[in-house]
């Protein structure tokens, strides 16, 4: 039902305050894979309804050219979350981000509302999916179950709240997140979904940002939440495979295609045996290269 949603490219998810018409209008211009309209933490209590309505109408009126997500308020711990969903779901965002997720019950409550709206509005089942943010120790202890809820396509680390819960602070080397990142990543992989890392709030420190993105990419994260357009190109650059990797991936896929077409059994590229995981990795590299604009659509066939 939502297999594609579980695998689409999400190198960058950019937060956009839901009460800023200017930022909402321009949100998709910077090349983020996903734009995430926020009606939660960046919106003052007295502005909640204004932001909710603005996001609702923006999603209806503006043909954004990338994936859209809305970070709603907590559905059981605040009085705003349910109203957010009622207003925003009919505008059909691609994703709803649940903040401070701590139990599968929250996810199921939201899933039920999504299903009702999909049926009522005639949206195809699986149009609207869920990304859960883990922002507390309690949430982290539940993450394996949360990740396996069928509508959930990604788990995100909500770092700022998480370190508050841990009673520590952000460091450049990120030791405070070692366990949480590992746990989230493993839970996501176990459930066959994606893992998205937390924001890096020091917008002016591009070098520190670059280092952190390199680290989380090496860990295995699928992407990073960003808070400013200048961060996007850095993430994409780090997530762009090297020419050598691309050339190899193209070759692997071409050989694999040839093997399938001609019923060949075992195959090898450059003397190495090719099996399932290597093909999957090659497909991911080609997808990343295309997203970076360095490989044309169907490029790997041309390159054969």
């Amino acid at each position, binding site marked *: 039902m939502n297999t594609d949603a579980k695998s689409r490219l999400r190198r960058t998810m950019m937060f956009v305050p839901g009460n800023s018409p200017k930022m909402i*209008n321009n949100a998709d211009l*910077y090349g983020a894979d996903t734009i995430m309209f926020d009606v939660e933490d960046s919106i003052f209590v007295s502005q909640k309804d204004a932001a909710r309505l603005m996001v609702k109408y923006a999603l209806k009126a*503006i043909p954004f050219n990338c994936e859209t997500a809305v970070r709603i308020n907590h559905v059981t711990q605040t009085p705003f979350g349910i109203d957010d969903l009622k207003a925003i779901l009919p505008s059909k965002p691609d994703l709803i981000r649940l903040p401070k997720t701590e139990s599968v019950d929250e996810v199921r409550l939201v899933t039920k509302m999504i299903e009702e709206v999909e049926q009522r509005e005639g949206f195809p089942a699986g149009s609207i999916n869920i990304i859960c943010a883990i922002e507390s120790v309690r949430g982290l202890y539940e993450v394996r179950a949360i990740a396996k809820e069928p509508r959930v396509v990604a788990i995100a680390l909500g770092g700022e709240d998480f370190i508050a819960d841990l009673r520590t602070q952000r460091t450049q080397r990120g030791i405070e997140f070692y366990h949480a990142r590992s746990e989230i990543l493993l839970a996501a992989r176990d459930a066959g979904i994606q893992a998205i890392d937390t924001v890096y709030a020091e917008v002016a420190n591009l070098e520190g940002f670059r280092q952190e993105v390199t680290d989380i990419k090496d860990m295995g994260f699928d992407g990073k939440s960003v808070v400013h357009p200048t961060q996007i190109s850095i993430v994409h650059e780090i997530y762009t495979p090297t020419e050598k990797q691309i050339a190899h991936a193209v070759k692997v896929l071409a050989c694999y295609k040839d093997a399938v077409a001609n019923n060949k059994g075992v195959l090898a590229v450059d003397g190495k045996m090719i099996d399932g995981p290597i093909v999957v990795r090659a497909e991911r590299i080609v997808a990343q290269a295309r997203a970076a604009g360095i490989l044309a659509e169907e490029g790997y066939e041309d390159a054969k």
Partner: protein
Amino acid sequence: MQNKAGRELPTHIYGLKTYRPYEGLFIDPPAPVLMAGRTLRVGRPGSNKVLASLVEAVEATGLRDGMTISFHHHFRDGDYVNKLVMTAIASKGIKDIRIATSSLNDCHDFLIDYIEDGTVTALETSGLRGKLGAYLTQNPGKLKRPVIIRSHGGRARAIEAGEVKIDVAFMGVPTCDRFGNATGRIGKSACGALGYAMLDSRFAEQVVLVTDNLIDGYVFPYSIPQTDVNYIVPVETIGDPEGIASGILKITKNPIQLLLAEAAAKVIEYSGYFKNGYSIQLGGGGSALAAGRYIREKMIKQQIKGSFGVGGVTGVFAKMLEEGLFEICYDTQTFDTAPIQSLRENPRHVEMSCSFYANPWSPGPIINNLDVAILGATEVDLDFNVNVITNSNGQLMGASGGHSDIAASCKLAIIVMPLIRGRFPMVLDRVQNIVTPGESIDVVVTDRGIAVNPRRQDLIDNLRKSGLKLMTIEELQALAHRLIGKPKALALSEDDKDITAIIEYRDGTLLDVIRKPF
């Protein structure tokens, strides 16, 4: 009459000569024109040019009702000279003065009072902003004739051709000696190049220098020579250093401007002109400045060396000169403190007059050699015509500057602007006012796509490889309308009495008139 830019214009405009209509980018003068001259005056050994006050200078020059005076805009929004001089003139009870200045800024709003009391009755300028711009937009008829808007090159042409006859040029200079040799490179009010002052000093009937740094000994190198100077008036201060040079101009953090800058740099990279020996005009706007940074990175990476840069100069370009990425920098006005130092210390940073820069009636202004330029716009239209003088409400708030000069002369004129400002689409069916004809524009870069003038098929082919989103100008407009709708056209008075300003093309023909909005 209709001109070649498709504008329906009155044959007679109150207070002005009969204009030839705009006929195209490069048209010869209708008859041979002699370069303007001035009365020769004899300075005797031992005579003293230094006067105690501006009132004395007004008396000494014999300035009287109906005369034309001029100023330059090198002090930008920090200028005090214009006000000091006008106060002296008004104190003498002189009326009916025509101000022919190279440009005006917000700091010149005080002129409203002198227009109201009849001291000033005519204005000729490159730009009009602030309260003065609003006042003149709303009050046609306060002046004896519409404001004449000229480009920098067009003004140089008009002065050299004798169409603008300056009786007294009041030139603020950051440093001068007791004989009149003057420079903008040093002094507490240093502004860098004096390209506009150089021209006025050369052609005005009389020249009064106003300075806050009168030095003993001799100024060298000088931008204005003592042979052009009649009087010198020392004053407390000629301007606010904050407004004159903007410290070090910082690269913008505005993400939209950065996006535009990156796209403009990419257009240049793939245009076919980005190769050894190319030349560029960057300008001082936010996006142009940021584009400079991207271009610099590309030049270093691809090991490309340019020949010259030209125009208003910023630190970004001074740095590229310093690094050897360009051979020469031609500077007519200097925007921030870093290039002022460069002008002082780097022999390849050359000061030039605005005539050398852009005068179309010369055997060759430097911009005739220019390859690429990045320019701004308040709005463009489906014919690629550009407005830089009025805003979406029809109010005077910009400046013609070198815009039309550069666009006509260079090989690749790139307009950079957001597609939408507030709730206004910036691609119109017809711009409110044409400052630069569409036939001289090659590419319009917006944050949502790029349109190439269809007469440049070569560029369209080259830019296909850039990965930029190429669209027709009509598609760009449709995209804007899809997002914010199509606003009702601005209603303007059709009464010829309500013409507030005219836009003279660089060759002296009539390009457009600016009418009062309802």
